[in-house]
């Protein structure tokens, strides 16, 4: 099962985060997940100040500066995981450096097996 893992920055959670000695650095996390062969790809994204939102209305392309949603939380990166099941994806997400002080959202890909 493929999962899109959104890496979310949450200023409120960041303020309350308590660093722990068990926290991995992003390099350690990548080495761990890539070593297990569970990560297809992923990357960090530039901040929402560099985002552009695009939509079409009555044939007109409307381009606006900024993200598609006004929210204190924003997506700072993503990883595409290939896991046997949700528990495995949860374990990988829980070790991500952003899990402590931010959050991760796991979204399964559409599959066409039915």
């Amino acid at each position, binding site marked *: *099962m493929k999962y899109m893992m959104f890496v979310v920055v949450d200023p409120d959670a960041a303020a309350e985060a308590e660093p722990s000695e068990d926290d991995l650095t992003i390099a350690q996390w990548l080495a761990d997940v890539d070593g297990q062969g569970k990560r297809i790809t992923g990357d960090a994204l530039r901040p929402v100040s560099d985002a552009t939102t695009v939509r079409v209305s009555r044939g007109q392309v409307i381009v606006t500066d900024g993200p598609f949603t006004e929210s204190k939380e924003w997506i700072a990166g993503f990883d595409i995981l290939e*896991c*046997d*099941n*949700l*528990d495995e994806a*949860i374990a990988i997400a829980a070790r991500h450096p952003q899990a402590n002080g931010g959050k991760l959202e*796991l979204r*399964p890909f559409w599959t066409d*097996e*039915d």
Partner: protein
Amino acid sequence: MHSATAEAITSAVAAERTGMVASLIRLTGDWDLAEDCVQDAVERALVHWPHDGMPRSPEAWLTTVARNRALDLLRRRQTERAKLQQRAIMDATASGAALETDPQSDDRLRLIFTCCHPALALEGRVALTLKTVAGLSTAEIARAFLVSEPTMSQRLLRTKRKISNAAIPYRVPPDELLAERTSGVLVVLYLIFNEGYGQHEDHLAVEALQLARLLVDLMPGEDEARGLLALVTFQMSRRSTRFDAHGDLVPMEEQDRSGWDAALMEEGHRHLRRAARSGRPPGPYRLQAQIAACHATAATAEATAWGTIVALFDALLAAQPSPVIALNRAIAVGFRDGYEAGLAELDALDATALAGYYLLPSARADFLRRLGRNDEAHHAYLAALHLAPAGQPEQRLLQRRLTDL
């Protein structure tokens, strides 16, 4: 074949249903198919057995009928997935691997852990557990939660879809997850119990009792599961005395203790003794069960061991800090040390954390009434009445106290 009474048939069917649904889900991954086919087998049993007699192995009979029904339905689907599902059922039938003794491979335990997976919404976990593990109909669950049947049906559908779409595994969690996932199961069972226990019609509390018994059978070494079961049995032992003829709440000290169910209380004591033998310190459910046991063993309300109860609340607060537990501890102190001391304890509580909770003014009103400070009690009862759930038995009890002042 031997003669079959309606009662024998019902209990044979009930004993096998959950395991059959659970094993068909494992084989096919299709929750609706599993439930429908088992339901079909059950209905056929109810038609045939009264005439033909009960088969020597009801389980084998029901399993064969349910699996054949599943194979029929899957053949009509003609998809690749359906072919794999048919193969899984035929392989299982050929190997005869229906009866396994290792609890880790008991399909019912897989089913329980999957229904209670933390990635599912809590209301979905509760509904699905009642539907597939307890075998309630969608209409029954809808009634219990005061929602329409289509709403409950949607909730169940969404929950089952997420299990399949997000690939929630159908398994007993591995060791590193077992403790947290087991406490997640206990949360769901306790929630079902509380949903039912507050009501005069306590069907859900009865279901929770059965579910807790099943979990203890499947996980005999889990002290906290035994703790929850003990807690539920002690509380259920008082069910026939909790409401009067008008459906009004009777406070514990006014209940007729000779009406408490001795067999249920003994069941509770037995599980507490068994859990104590593990030598592990008691967790929150065992502690609450021990408090309930103190009430069960007191011959009269006056003979209640309030000192022990306060000590148990102290341990419970240390294990699970909560303003509501602190409130209950303060009440216990009032009965141990006197009502003035109880009022002082109530005053020392975190009023902000308990704001809007009727039990704080109601406890204060109760102590004031016992001290004969009727004017103050009157005001406290009014405050409690204002906050109590409207139209519920608790509110009627407060109203009665106010009138009696």
